[in-house]
Structure formats: C-alpha cells, structure tokens
C-alpha cells in the first residue's frame, strides 16, 4: 500500500452536543482515511465546543469570528491560522458560515493555496428553505407546500392555505410541528428570536423520514450516497441512532438531483416517504450531516472523497454500500483541565 499523504485540514463544527455539528464525525472519517495522514486544525466559535478538547482527533484548535462578523474578519483570522499551520484543505460544516466560506473560496485558493470543495453561491441560495418550492419546480422534485412569513399577523390566514398540523421552521435551524395557530405563534417567536426572520411555514407531511448523505463532483455526478432511516430521535428531532437502508428510488432521486443541480460538495437530503411511496423533499442541507460517519461505516468515506476532490483528484463514484448498518450515538464526559479552558478563552487557541 502506498504511504498516506500528509495533509493539514481545517474543520469547523466541533460542537458535538445534543444538536451536533458534523465536525467531529467528519474528522473521525478523515483520521481513518487510507489515502491521507491528516493533521486536523479545529476552527471553533465557542470555547465549550467539545471537539476542542478531543486531542486524539483535533491536533490544534483556533477560535474564529462568528459568521455575523463578516468575511473580512474571517479572512484575517484564517491568514493568521494559515501562517502557523499551513492549511491544505478547509471543510466548513455549518449552514450559517457557508456563505462567507463560499465567497472566500477563490481568495483562499489564490492567496494561500487553501483548497475547498463547496457548492456555488447559486446552488447554496436556490436550495434555501424559503426557496424550496421554486427549487422543487425547477428540478422536478416534489416538495411540501410552504411559504415565508414575517409577522405573527400572518398566522391567522394560514388556515386558508394550509391544513394543520404545520411545520414552523427557522431560516437556518430549528423546526417544530404546530397543531394550532397559537402554537405557530409560540414557535414563531421562539425561532425568530434565535435565528431571525423569515419564518418558513411548511405543510406537515405524514410518513416516514428518510435522509441521504451524499457528495457531488460539481459536474452532475453523484460520487457517493447512503440513505438512512432514523431509529431514535431526540426531542430536538436529531437522530440518536439510525440504520442504512436499501431504497433504490431514494438513490435515483439523489442522482437525479445531483445531475440537475450539478451539486458540488457534501449534502444531506431530508425526505418524507409517504405511505403511498411518494417522496417529498423537505430540506437540503448544503454540507455533510452529523451522521456522515455512518457512510464511512458503510464503506463510503465521503469526507475523504471531498478532500480528494478539493485537491483536484479524480474520484470514482461508489456503486455500493453496506445495508442494515447502524449508528448509535452516545454522550461522553471529557475531563478538561482548567488550564486548557483558560488558554482557549484568553488566547483563542489550544
């Protein structure tokens, strides 16, 4: 076997919490890569993101400015980090930060030779929750009826267009099922207080939720796709355990979408499969999901493929994966010395 190529990869999303970011599973998949010997540079927003303290996975962590600070301050910080770490590839894992990283992708490549493999701004924008109905029409995929609202005064008239229950969603995160207009108002205030406006109202679909983690090469090819059904769901709607399934229609839908959108990078499709075996796309996440390590467990190392694509290598699409493989998530208490917390809190690196 040829020696593994040494490479420095910066990864965000180290918040392995109850609503986990994908950083830690992405890192685990990369650490187990047969092609690369990776050194991981963690990029953290908060000082208590658990990945910061997982020294067997994350070699060094730097704090980065919140997405709201804008791309100029992110670029300045990345320049500093690069001067210390010589980053080869960067993998952002949060929806909210992606816009800045996409906008900076060319600059990072030209000025520092930091590679990434991200969707284009157009791809990123068109699959946004508020744009999903148009997206469905354009790519001939069924999506539940939805609309944006900007004020609680829009709520009473919803019953003319929708049938309760409804799903109340934030622009980036959070979704709650509401059975009455009063509940819509409660969730409207709660979610808009956290993520801002608009709030998206989506028709609730009865059926089974199935998800796909996938990666596209940006030229219409689906490099890999693994469908999963959630088996245990937390009160935040997150999968705490799941199982890979054999669903050819779902894979065909994923390939069709990849071909039609020419998607570049990792993505997660969230789909409702009705009792009549109709598939409704309820969300597209423009990055790997927090359960992406299951794909590695099923024989498709999607994060490794993303790095190879970022480096300009040709990647052969996978044709199979293990069916009936499960993941069971767990929580774990890390013991952290105060010195470490002090260092990341005061110096912004650890």
């Amino acid at each position, binding site marked *: 076997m040829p020696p593994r190529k040494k490479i420095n990869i910066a990864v965000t999303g180290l918040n392995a919490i109850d609503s986990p970011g994908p950083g830690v599973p992405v890192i685990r998949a990369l650490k187990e890569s047969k092609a690369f010997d990776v050194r991981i540079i963690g990029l953290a927003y908060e000082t208590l993101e658990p990945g910061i303290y997982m020294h067997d996975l994350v070699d060094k962590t730097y704090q980065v400015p919140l997405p709201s600070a804008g791309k100029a301050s992110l670029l300045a910080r990345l320049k500093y980090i690069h001067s210390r770490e010589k980053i080869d590839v960067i993998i952002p894992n949060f929806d909210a930060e992606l816009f800045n990283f996409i906008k900076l992708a060319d600059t990072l490549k030209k000025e520092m030779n930091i590679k990434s493999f991200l969707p284009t701004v157009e791809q990123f924008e068109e699959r946004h929750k508020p744009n999903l109905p148009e997206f469905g029409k354009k790519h001939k995929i069924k999506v539940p009826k939805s609309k944006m609202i900007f004020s609680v005064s829009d709520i009473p008239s919803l019953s003319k267009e929708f049938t309760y229950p409804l799903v109340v969603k934030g622009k980036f995160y959070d979704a709650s099922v509401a059975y009455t207009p009063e509940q819509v108002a409660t969730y409207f205030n709660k979610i808009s207080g956290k993520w801002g406006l608009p709030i998206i109202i989506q028709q609730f679909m009865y059926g089974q939720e199935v998800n796909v983690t996938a990666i596209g090469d940006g030229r219409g090819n689906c490099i890999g796709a693994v469908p999963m059904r959630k088996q245990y769901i937390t009160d935040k709607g997150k999968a705490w355990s799941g199982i890979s*399934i054999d669903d050819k229609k779902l894979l065909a839908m994923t390939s069709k979408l990849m071909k039609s959108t020419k998607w570049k990078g990792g993505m997660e499709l969230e789909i409702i499969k009705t009792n009549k075996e109709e598939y409704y796309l309820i969300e597209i996440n423009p990055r790997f999901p927090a359960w992406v390590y299951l794909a590695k467990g099923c024989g498709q190392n999607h994060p490794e493929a993303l790095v190879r694509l970022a480096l300009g290598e040709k990647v052969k699409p996978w044709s199979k994966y293990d069916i*009936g493989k499960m993941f069971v998530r767990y929580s774990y208490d890390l013991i952290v010395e105060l010195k470490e917390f002090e260092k990341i809190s005061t110096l912004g690196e650890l």
Partner: protein
Amino acid sequence: MKLKRNIAHSDSGFVFDPNTGDSFSTNPIGTEIIKLLKEGKDTEQIKEAIVKVYLVDDATFEKDYYDFITMLSKLKLTEDAAKEKN
C-alpha cells in the same frame, strides 16, 4: 402469498426489512413459517410441515397461520403488500 425477496431473517427470529430499516422478532414457529415462505412453500406445504412437528389441529393452524400472514402483510413484508403500496 410471497415474502419480499430481500427480507433478511435469522434462526434467532430476527427479521429485517432493508427497504425501510424496520426490524421485528418472531417466536420459533413464526421463524419456521418465515423460513418455509422464503423457500417458496405454499400454504398446504407449510401446514403439512407444521402439523407434522407440532400438536395442532388443521383448523387452529389455519386460523393462526392467516393471522400471522395478515400481520406480515400489514407490516409490508410481503410482495402483495409492496404492490398495493404502488
């Protein structure tokens, strides 16, 4: 009545539907019936095989057998149930 071809089952009574990710467990007689169904045996052949080994009369077997088959169909583990869905 035919079981869906890709249904996986084991001697421990564990049944797995790879299309949906659903899993079930059956008692030893259920396991035996599923095994016979997978071998393509029809109702008469299954009855013969079960009645030969267990102390059960034809009428009781038939009642319990159809209950079991109905349950398999409801759980969408049979070909006809899969066709109905489409």
